[in-house]
């Protein structure tokens, strides 16, 4: 057991992410302002800042010159922004942390340290491509560009052997997912009361399971894991759900890439079409917002579509999507358990023992759940908990999490040959699965949103979402 905790990738991911969470929380905790009289006031929340925030960055959004992504000169009252320093510091921290982890596991830290700058450079390039304001406006997320950058290299000159020690896709993903766990705060589940829970947590599992069963028994998809990843990214919340589910069911990297490609393609269309439909049929802002939040895969696209309808729709849509985001932990845990107990059964009828389940269960999922529980408790129970946890996430861990996923997608692209993706398009089953599942999602979400927001809890809605924010 101790050897496994020192050598297995899942445990190393937990230690690395745990170390980052601990250091970031400690930095915020020790730098929080003291209340002079020791008596806090709920009406006067403490202004908490993260001292690490100025030193951790990703390439910034830019419009005219790519240099804006790394440096903005001082203007007026605003100080100069040296984003490239934050980028270099993040790179340094990740390389040091992972080199130490690999050394602990008895692997070559030296080879990793020689390779990492190149992979990190490609991730920086991917972030820069994704950071152009017009690219962002169409929800073309960094994951897509990270894949493309890697694919271009691997399918032209070929991936240099030098890069391979730092192409640690699963390690990056698992570490990023444990960090993501700290952003899954249980107290936010009731942000929209019971109506929000019904739309986000009742409809979503029904759509997920129905789409998976449809894929297995009607479409007869060859790959269960591809089926599961597409079902999850379509029903839960897009890229982040796809990553968590793919790791939980040990999906192939090509399957994750395909699922994300499908999700992003349809998201752009739905982001434009759905608000137009809502306006055309005269749906209320609340109902329209709930429908958008429960169906459009990506958080950013949900916000765009909601804002087109109005402030109330934006609030409802973004909150429903946030409640769905919280479902990621449960989804990853449930999928991992299902995979270990049913899909990976050794022989027909032989149920794995508890010991076997524990052995095969992806431990990083436990790290994800533990991070969620710990930070949910800190949020709810510490004085100034919301401000402290928000400062930790917004100022540091969110940045690291994004970099880990970006590095993972670059690594996937570097390992993938275009020809490896072609078999998945045969027969068009992934596309049919997505379209059928999303159609069910659209119908069921609309019905549940109507039932909850316009019938059962209609009286409560004005209190939950006032007309004038």
């Amino acid at each position, binding site marked *: 057991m101790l050897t496994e905790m020192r050598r297995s990738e899942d445990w190393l991911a937990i230690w690395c992410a745990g170390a980052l969470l601990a250091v970031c929380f400690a930095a915020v905790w020790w730098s929080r302002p003291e209340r002079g009289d020791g008596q806090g006031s709920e009406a006067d929340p403490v202004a908490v800042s993260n001292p690490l925030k100025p030193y951790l960055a990703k390439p910034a959004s830019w419009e005219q010159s790519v240099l804006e992504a790394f440096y903005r000169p001082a203007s007026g009252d605003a100080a100069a922004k040296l984003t490239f320093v934050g980028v270099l510091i993040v790179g340094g921290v990740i390389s040091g942390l992972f080199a130490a982890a690999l050394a602990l596991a008895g692997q070559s830290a030296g080879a990793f340290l020689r390779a990492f700058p190149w992979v990190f450079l490609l991730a920086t390039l991917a972030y820069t491509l994704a950071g152009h304001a017009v690219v962002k406006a169409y929800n*073309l997320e960094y994951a897509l560009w990270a894949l493309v950058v890697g694919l271009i290299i691997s399918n032209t000159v*070929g991936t240099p052997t030098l890069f391979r020690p730092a192409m640690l896709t699963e390690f990056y993903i698992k570490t990023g997912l444990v960090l993501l766990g700290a952003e899954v705060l249980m107290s936010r589940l009731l942000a929209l009361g019971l109506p929000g829970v019904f739309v986000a947590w009742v409809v979503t599992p029904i759509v997920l399971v129905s789409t998976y069963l449809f894929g297995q028994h009607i479409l007869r998809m060859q790959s269960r894991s591809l089926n599961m990843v597409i079902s999850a990214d379509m029903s839960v919340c897009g890229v*982040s759900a796809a990553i968590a589910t793919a790791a939980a069911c040990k999906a192939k990297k090509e399957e994750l890439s395909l699922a994300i490609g499908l999700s992003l393609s349809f998201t752009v269309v739905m982001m434009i079409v759905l608000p137009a439909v809502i306006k055309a049929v005269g749906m209320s802002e609340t109902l329209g917002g709930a429908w958008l939040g429960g169906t459009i895969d990506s*958080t950013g696209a949900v*916000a765009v579509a909601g804002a087109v309808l109005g402030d109330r729709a934006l609030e409802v849509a*973004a909150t429903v999507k946030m409640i769905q985001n919280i479902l990621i932990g449960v989804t990853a845990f449930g999928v991992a358990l299902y995979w270990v107990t049913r899909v990976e059964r050794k022989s027909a009828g032989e149920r794995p023992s508890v010991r076997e389940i524990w052995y095969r269960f992806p431990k990083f999922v436990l790290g994800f759940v533990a991070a969620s529980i710990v930070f949910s408790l800190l949020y709810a129970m510490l004085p100034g908990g919301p401000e402290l946890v928000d400062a930790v996430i917004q100022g540091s861990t*969110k940045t690291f999490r994004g970099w880990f996923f970006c590095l993972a997608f670059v690594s996937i692209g570097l390992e993938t040959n275009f020809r490896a993706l072609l078999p998945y398009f045969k027969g068009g089953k992934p596309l049919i699965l997505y379209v059928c599942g999303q159609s069910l999602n659209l119908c069921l979400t609309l019905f549940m949103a109507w039932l909850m927001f316009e019938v059962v809890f209609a009286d409560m809605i004005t209190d939950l979402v*006032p007309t004038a924010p």
Partner: protein
Amino acid sequence: MRTRTPTPARTLKLAAVVAAAAAVWLAFLPWLARQPAVQERLRWLEVHGIDPSATFYTELPAMQEILRRQRNRAD
């Protein structure tokens, strides 16, 4: 993972892709961003605190304000 050896043809392919990407990102997209309709759209997104590329609620600037309002209402 299949190993590929860089050949002149493959290097030329990479160079062509890089040149095309540079033309799009360094020339076309900045020009597009200057167009009045696009500028209007980008400022609208900024004013509403929306990052369309956000993958999780913690990446959406508008969400912080929404959560603050919801906390105040709950209090």
